[in-house]
Structure formats: structure tokens, C-alpha cells
């Protein structure tokens, strides 16, 4: 089973980003997803910067994938998406499609792609349809449990690779509204990149103190952090080919190392569960639950 690093969920300073990927190049991660998938205004790195970074990481022996924006509203965002797809095709880089527009563009370009977790694949026929459009790997929607994923894999005749999102705060919803700007009581159109001040998002807590959600720009993420790392043996035995960690902080690279170590030495515990963790969806429960 390969270890992958998903795209950056939060908005970091350019130097932080570059330093992080320099360290990631030395890590045991096999596949690294790059690019801005949350907000089109987060442009500390240009598309060319991301492509350059992808090539550097290729040199370091990593497979790289360019991730697209998940919620595409303005025509300018759609043009920028098309440009990214064309750029990737020219540079022979794989793209993770997080919106059906990306699927459309990539299939027009006859480029293989990864179907990201924001595409709605709930059955084998849908997966096969995308496979015929060029999908070579899929990341199941986050709300699917192990049985549902196994059913889809079994029903699929095309059998693209399966990559499971296994660690990090889960994106639960996308909106036109920027909740970070709202929390600061400023308009989205004059956001002054306020999310740079929140490199791990903002917590929304219930009135009795339970951390419910993490606000990350236009995304509403889970309050708890998904942790399926300790279930890596079960995940692998189900035939899942890749396991994804979200780069929530530079410290995620320690988890990558410890997962690699656990896999090599057949150890069960990668990182101990805390009250901040959840694994409900995988275990057929509400997403916020933790089953130890």
C-alpha cells in the first residue's frame, strides 16, 4: 500500500509551503498531491510554481498529482481550471479532478486522471463511467464506510485504483460564503487573505463546548480529525492500494514516517487515539464517532 499526501487544506505562506515540500521530498510518502483545491484567491503559488514543484518532487522519486479546485463558480475559475489541465497534459503530469468540469476537460484532452473525494461516486456503474472517461484512481466520498467501498470496488468492472482518505480533518461541505471572512466580520470580496492567520482553520464549538466544525474559508470541515491510520492492516486487506494523509501541519510527515515504519514492521498502532479523533464513517457510524 502506497502512502500519499493530499493537497494542502489550509492557506500557508509561500515559504512555509516550499519548506514543507522540501521536507516531504525526504519523507517516505510515495505520492504527493499539489495545488490549491479550496479557494481561487489563495494564490501565493502560481500554477507554474506548482508545476515546477511537481517536477522537483518527481526528481526526488515522488509521483506527483495536481489537484483542482473543488467548487468552481466564476467563469475565470473555469478558464483557470482548463489552463491547469492543459498545462498538466503538456508536462505529462497527472491531475486530481475535484469537479466534473475537470473530468470534462481531462477527458477532452484524453488525459488520465484521479477522481478526487469531492466527486460523487456511490456505486460501481458511476466509477466505471468515469473510468471510461479516463479515471485511473478514485478517492471514495468521505461519508462512505468500508462495506460500501468494498461493494463499489467489487461491482466495478474497470477496477481503477482505490485511495482512501485516512487522516486529517474531513471536508464536509463547500459554500459560496467564506466562513473565515464571516468570522472576522469582513466581506469575502475584501478578505485580505485573513485565512493566512489561521494555518489550521478556526474551530466552531457548540454552546456546551464540543468542537463541531473547523472553518476553512469556503469549506466546513469536521471538528475532529479522522484517524484511520491504526486500521491500516484492515484497509490494506480490503485491497485498497493507497492511503492518504492530509498535510494539516508540517508534523504530518512524522505520521508518514511512523505509518511507513508500522507497515514495514507490521505494528498496529501508528498514532494513539485521542478525544480529538474520529473514525465513524469507516465503521458505518456517524462521522464524528470514534470506535476504538
Amino acid at each position, binding site marked *: 500500500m502506497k502512502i500519499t499526501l493530499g493537497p494542502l487544506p489550509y492557506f500557508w505562506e509561500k515559504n512555509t509551503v516550499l519548506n514543507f515540500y522540501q521536507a516531504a521530498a525526504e519523507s517516505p510518502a510515495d505520492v504527493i498531491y499539489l495545488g490549491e483545491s479550496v479557494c481561487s484567491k489563495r494564490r501565493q503559488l502560481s500554477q507554474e510554481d506548482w508545476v515546477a514543484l511537481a517536477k522537483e518532487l518527481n526528481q526526488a522519486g515522488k509521483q506527483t498529482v495536481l489537484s483542482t479546485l473543488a*467548487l468552481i463558480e466564476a467563469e475565470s475559475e473555469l478558464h483557470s481550471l482548463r489552463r491547469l489541465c492543459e498545462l498538466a497534459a503538456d508536462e505529462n503530469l497527472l491531475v486530481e479532478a475535484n469537479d466534473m468540469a475537470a473530468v*470534462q476537460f481531462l477527458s477532452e484532452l484524453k488525459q488520465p486522471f484521479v477522481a478526487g473525494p469531492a466527486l460523487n461516486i456511490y456505486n460501481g456503474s458511476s466509477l466505471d463511467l468515469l473510468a471510461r472517461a479516463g479515471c485511473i484512481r478514485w478517492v471514495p466520498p468521505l461519508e462512505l464506510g468500508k462495506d*460500501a467501498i468494498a461493494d463499489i470496488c467489487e461491482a466495478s468492472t474497470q477496477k481503477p485504483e482505490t485511495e482512501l482518505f485516512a487522516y486529517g480533518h474531513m471536508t464536509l461541505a463547500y459554500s*459560496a460564503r*467564506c466562513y473565515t471572512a464571516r*468570522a472576522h466580520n469582513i466581506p469575502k470580496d475584501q478578505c485580505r487573505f485573513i485565512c493566512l492567520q489561521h494555518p489550521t482553520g478556526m474551530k466552531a464549538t457548540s454552546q456546551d463546548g464540543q468542537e463541531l466544525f473547523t472553518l476553512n474559508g469556503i469549506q466546513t470541515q469536521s471538528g475532529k480529525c479522522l484517524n484511520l491510520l491504526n486500521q491500516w492492516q484492515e484497509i490494506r486487506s480490503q485491497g485498497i492500494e493507497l492511503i492518504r494523509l492530509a498535510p494539516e501541519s508540517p508534523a504530518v510527515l512524522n505520521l508518514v514516517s511512523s505509518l511507513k515504519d508500522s507497515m514495514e514492521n507490521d505494528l498496529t498502532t501508528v498514532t494513539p487515539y485521542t478525544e480529538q479523533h474520529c473514525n465513524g464513517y469507516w465503521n*458505518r457510524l456517524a462521522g464524528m464517532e470514534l470506535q476504538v
Partner: protein
Amino acid sequence: MELVCPAGSLPAFKAAVEAGADAIYIGFKDNTNARHFAGLNFDDRKARQALDLARDKGVKLFVAINTYAQQREWHRWKAAVDQAVSIGANALIAADMSVMEYAHTQHPDLHLHLSVQGSATNFGALQFYVNQFNIKRAVLPRVLSLKQVKQVAAANVVDVEVFGFGSLCIMAEGRCYLSSYITGESPNTQGVCSPARFVEWRETGQHLESRLNNVVIDRYQPEEKAGYPTLCKGRFDVDGHRYHALEEPTSLNTLTILPELQAAGVKAVKIEGRQRSPAYVGQVVSVWRKALDKLKQSPENFRADNQWMEVLQSLSEGSQTTLGAYSRPWQ
């Protein structure tokens, strides 16, 4: 513009017909549609009765099969498509690729509308559905500004329908797991959001508390009006402030921008609310019928009548309405 209206029961269907709907959408009694609530929706017999009513008055009937088909239960979605065809529905409103593929290959004459749950917010995504399934119309998610709606409609990939009035989803529909995160049941899989069986009200002495699967969604002072604990409309604490962190209890109302929507080339407006009573449906549809008739008579002189606005406001969540994402400052 076509007026597309909701009906969760035969009496609501009658009310919509009488109030002047051009088309009415319904769902069957299972999780194949996004309003899978107890006591709601149509079995085969009721659906056929609805269709008779509709045909008498020249009203179209659409069937919403707009949840995502899970592998083990896929036969149920297939059966729902066949049933919609057998009763003679004018169009199917669908979200799942496999459902559309089945409908398109097995029933090529059936008109397909891409449901709002299909989450297509731009003409690139719409092109995919047109190419794959020859969809005839798409319902746009409530995340686009008026300018963005114009851009999508102007691309002329497929006819566009937008939401006009009703409960406001503030997340891109079809990609929201807030409900399954807290309760295990989501719009995509079960056709529900913040389902009623998880709701609990607690009187604590100081306040009335609403809970969903034991999670506190809001607390109300005695003078405050309590609302249904929809997850995205709770009051939460962020950075030391307690407020409606995502959205306030409010309904969408686009009556004031009808001329712009028409000029943009929008082909239909949809009223939300299959879970609403026949009286609600009748009142809302009647206001929108008047508004659309007036718009047709003289688009340049159209003004949203105060009385219409008052009626709609009185029927709204929290008695307030918003233009939602259509208005840039809302975002």
C-alpha cells in the same frame, strides 16, 4: 419562465395545480429522493392520480430520483426510474451518474434534468452531463451569484433552472456531509438532512436547548423563537463569539431579481418545499404565479409587490428572507 413547484402529497399537488404551477415535482416513498421524510411522497397509485390531475390542467409532472444509489440497493433506483417512465412522467430529476446512464440507455425518450444534488455549478460540468446523458435541463446549486448564473446561462450548454423560494441550502448541494457527520444520515445517501428522529428539545430552566443526535445546535432565551435544528443554522462559538457561524434561520426569496433572471435566459424557477403543507404550497405558488404573469406582461415595469413580499416573508424560516448567494455581499 416555467414555474416548477413542490408536492409531497396529493393535497399539496392539488394546491399547486390550482395555484397555477406550470410543472410539479414529486418523489416516491423511499430514499431515492432527497425529501425522504415520514408520511411524505407518492406510491404508484397516488402518483397516477397526481398525473391525471396534472394532465387535466396541462401541468407537467417531474419525478425526483435525486439521491445517490448505493451499490447494494441499486435495484431500488432502477425500479424508481422504471416506475417514473411507466406512470408517464414528463421528466426525471436525477443526480447520480449511474441513474442517469440507466435512464438514458433504457429510456432514451425520457427527458433528464440534472438535479441540484448533481452539484454542477459551471458550464464545464454541465457539458459533461450533456455529452454523457443528453440532459435537457440543469438545476443550479444555490452557491452562484447573479453574475455567475448569467455566465452559466449565457454559455448555452443546456437550459437552466434556478431556485426561487424556500428553505436555503447554503452549501453546494450534493456535496454536504454535515448531516451524516453528526447523525450518520445524509441527503446523498438517505435523502434527509438533520433528520427529525435525532432531534431533541431540552428545557434546562435557563433556556430551551435544541439537540441533534445529542449535539447542542442552539439555545434559546424565553423571548426567542426556536427553529428546527438544521445543522448549518445553529449558533456556535468561534473565537470567543457566539453567532450563527454558518447561516441564520432564513429562507431564499428571489422575487425582486426575477427580471434579471429572465434576461439572463433562465428557463425555469423552482419553489423548494416538498415537506411543506398544502396550504403553504398553495400560498407560495399563488404569489409566484402572479409575479411571473406580471413579469410576462411587462418585464420593464416589474416590481415585487409589497403584499407578495409580506406573504412570502410570513411563510419563511425565522420570518426573514434573503437573496443568498445571488447577492455578492451575502457571500
